[in-house]
């Protein structure tokens, strides 16, 4: 993803960027401190996956998109303050696919 000179984005890339945008939007609604934490966790997670996941591994990327969407829905709830649970689920899935 890094060296690209912004060619046309694929549909899946657009979905990933849209999810990323969604997380950053949701983070805005939290307190300044929580927002900062959420942003660094989310950004780290997306960047890690952008390097580690094979861009042709569509099934796995689709799985990550769905999982991310669920986590985003949880984060959007006003009761959710932070994303500490995300760390847990991240370490669980470092070895992907059950």
């Amino acid at each position, binding site marked *: 993803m890094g060296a690209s000179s912004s060619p046309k984005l694929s549909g899946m890339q*657009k979905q990933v*960027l*849209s999810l990323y945008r969604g997380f950053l939007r949701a983070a805005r609604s939290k307190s300044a401190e929580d927002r900062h934490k959420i942003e660094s966790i989310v950004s780290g997670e997306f960047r890690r996956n952008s390097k580690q996941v094979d861009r042709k591994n569509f099934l796995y990327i689709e799985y990550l998109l769905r999982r991310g969407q669920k986590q985003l829905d949880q984060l959007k709830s006003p009761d959710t303050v932070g994303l500490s649970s995300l760390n847990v689920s991240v370490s669980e899935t470092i070895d992907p696919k059950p």
Partner: protein
Amino acid sequence: MALRAAILRHVRVPVKTLTLTGRKSQPWGPNGASLRFLSSHGDDHLSKDEVIERVLSVIKSFPKVDPSQVTPDVHFQKDLGLDSLDNVEIVMALEEEFKLEIPDKEADKIDSSNLAIEYIYNHPMAG
């Protein structure tokens, strides 16, 4: 005849006062200001220079960016070495700076200072 004249004379007075008072209170009421505020390209619309300056300062303050490389037509990924995730972050920072919400479809297209400036300058709600 005398009756008719009397009626006419009688009617004229109240009609006159009604139109006068009615006209006065309408266009300059307290609603005038808020109506003007709704117009998309009012006097308070941002000038191009101001948009350029604020867009560039948002980009310059992005941690991964070398501020000396930022120009009004710099390309985020080709010239500044950013990736598409950084691109998203810059567009989000611009949203906050100008109090806008840029839809995904538009946001995906904004990949240079120039496009960002044009989009924001032409956006009626940018503030």
